């Protein structure tokens, strides 16, 4: 397998989207990781005397209306975004993929029920249902994670089922059945490895969407609660100060846009890199 990975890596380096998107994504995650142990200034430190400062060597991106360092806030906000996205996408993969795999393996009525339930979940606009859930269950980081996670489940269930059905028709699955393997074992040993590249690509795309959704919810005041920093909340707070200190809205906005762009580029690049048809032709 290491040969395969090395080859994927070599192909990846030739793909512009993969490289640029990868760099953006990695630096974003790295920034969040650093923020866990160190930020230039303490995030919760309110120093009224140094509020609304412009760009300077002490505060690279200036300070906000409470005198907090914007770089530190953005770094801490990245932690929040990454955490929410990881858990929410994890929830979607953890529940959606098994559901899709079971539906594909079993067919029949179970498949019908699972997929109709999926359609039902799909029918609601994702962000709207997240708003509804957080509105019902009360605002907060945990609830917003769950809300975002729930709308990830049908995405992964449907994708898994579709991709798995294609693999189920291949003859090597028939060979595995002749070998006496049951549907569960075939799903784990044959189906999932063969659809993993499709799933990985979808994970990067859902990751971007989750970050966007979290920012949206926090912007509406339904997500992360103060004093925890979040990009969406920063945008919300900057809104009223738009003419006073536009940089307070611009920098979180750029952070969100850049991250989503980076993840999408990375995902698109990854799709091309992992596609064996493109890889083999070289």
């Amino acid at each position, binding site marked *: 397998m290491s040969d395969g990975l090395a080859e994927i890596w070599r192909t990846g380096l030739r793909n512009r989207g993969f490289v640029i998107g990868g760099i953006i994504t990695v630096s974003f995650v790295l920034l969040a990781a650093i923020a866990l142990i160190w930020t230039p200034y303490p995030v919760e430190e309110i120093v009224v005397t140094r509020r609304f400062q412009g760009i300077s060597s002490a505060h690279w991106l200036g300070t906000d209306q409470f005198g907090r360092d914007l770089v530190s806030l953005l770094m801490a906000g990245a932690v929040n975004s990454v955490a929410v996205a990881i858990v929410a996408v994890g929830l979607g993969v953890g529940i959606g993929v098994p559901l899709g795999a079971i539906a594909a393996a079993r067919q029949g009525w179970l498949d019908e029920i699972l997929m109709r339930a999926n359609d039902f979940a799909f029918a609601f606009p994702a962000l709207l249902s997240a708003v509804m859930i957080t509105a019902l269950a009360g605002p907060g980081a945990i609830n917003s994670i769950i809300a975002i996670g729930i709308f990830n489940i049908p995405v992964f269930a449907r994708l898994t089922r579709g991709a798995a059905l294609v693999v189920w028709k*291949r*003859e*090597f699955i*028939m*060979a*595995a*059945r*002749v*070998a*006496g*393997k049951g549907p569960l074992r075939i799903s784990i040993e*044959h189906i999932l*490895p*063969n659809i993993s590249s499709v799933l990985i690509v979808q994970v990067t795309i859902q990751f971007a969407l989750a970050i966007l959704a979290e920012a949206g919810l926090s912007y509406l005041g339904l997500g992360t609660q103060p004093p925890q920093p979040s990009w969406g909340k920063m945008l919300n707070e900057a809104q009223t100060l738009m003419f006073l200190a536009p940089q307070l809205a611009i920098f979180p906005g750029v952070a969100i846009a850049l991250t989503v762009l980076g993840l999408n580029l990375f995902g698109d690049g990854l799709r091309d890199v992992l596609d*064996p048809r493109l890889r*083999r032709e070289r």
Partner: protein
Amino acid sequence: MNSPNPQPLLQVENLVREYRLPRKSLFGPPVSFRAVNGVSFNVDPGKSFGIVGESGCGKSTLARTVMGLEQPASGRVLLEGQDVFALPARALRSLRRKFQMVFQDPYGSLDPRFKVERIVAEPLEVLLPDLSRAERRERVGATLDSVGLKPADADRYPHEFSGGQRQRVAIARALITEPSLIVADEPVSALDVSVQAQVLNLIMDLQTRQGLTFLFISHDLSVVRHITDEVAVMYAGEIVETGPTHQVFSDPQHSYTRSLIGAVPIPDPRRSRRLKRTAGSAGES
């Protein structure tokens, strides 16, 4: 013709396999289609039994049903006297050792993410889960050797092999449990002529060397004619003619068999349709 044999290795009795089609209207009665319609035949140990027919005649469905991969609507499949569909799941799993299958598409029948060792050893995973790595490797090596591959090929991936070699890998996978019956569904139709001959020779060689029994399914009459002892001709889910291969081919009784044999192109330009036609038009003018 049939020598009195104590027991055929494979008995298929009145096998019927139906598929449910979509209803014509929302409340109409369910429609079903009989892909295999009351098929019966016996295969004696050590013999090679061919099933020929054109696409859609039900021969592949028959193969999968014989393998217990599809449930028949009625009828029985007996392997060494044991009814495949009456057995409990566990017993069926251990009976699988006795009958294995080789598929048509050498590109689709091997999992691209597995190394050859794991592909060939797959039937053992269920049968002998306690087999040690070393023993497993040894058995895979020996089996690869018996199909004309090198034991070292076990460490390679399917995409490193040509079509003919892949089909050898697939045959090795079927052989590793030391089965008595191999069901081969169009095993050479995806291969080029020269490679096809290599694989057919391997199959014939295995049969004489290991006393294997083959159920050989093909649309290619010359292949079936060459390698089988007995043959059944299928049309629209039913067997229309059966008998010793040379007899069926030299003296076909059923009109369908006759038209099938008559349609096979013969590599002899003196019988060409061009010459026939030129001669015909010359005669007219």
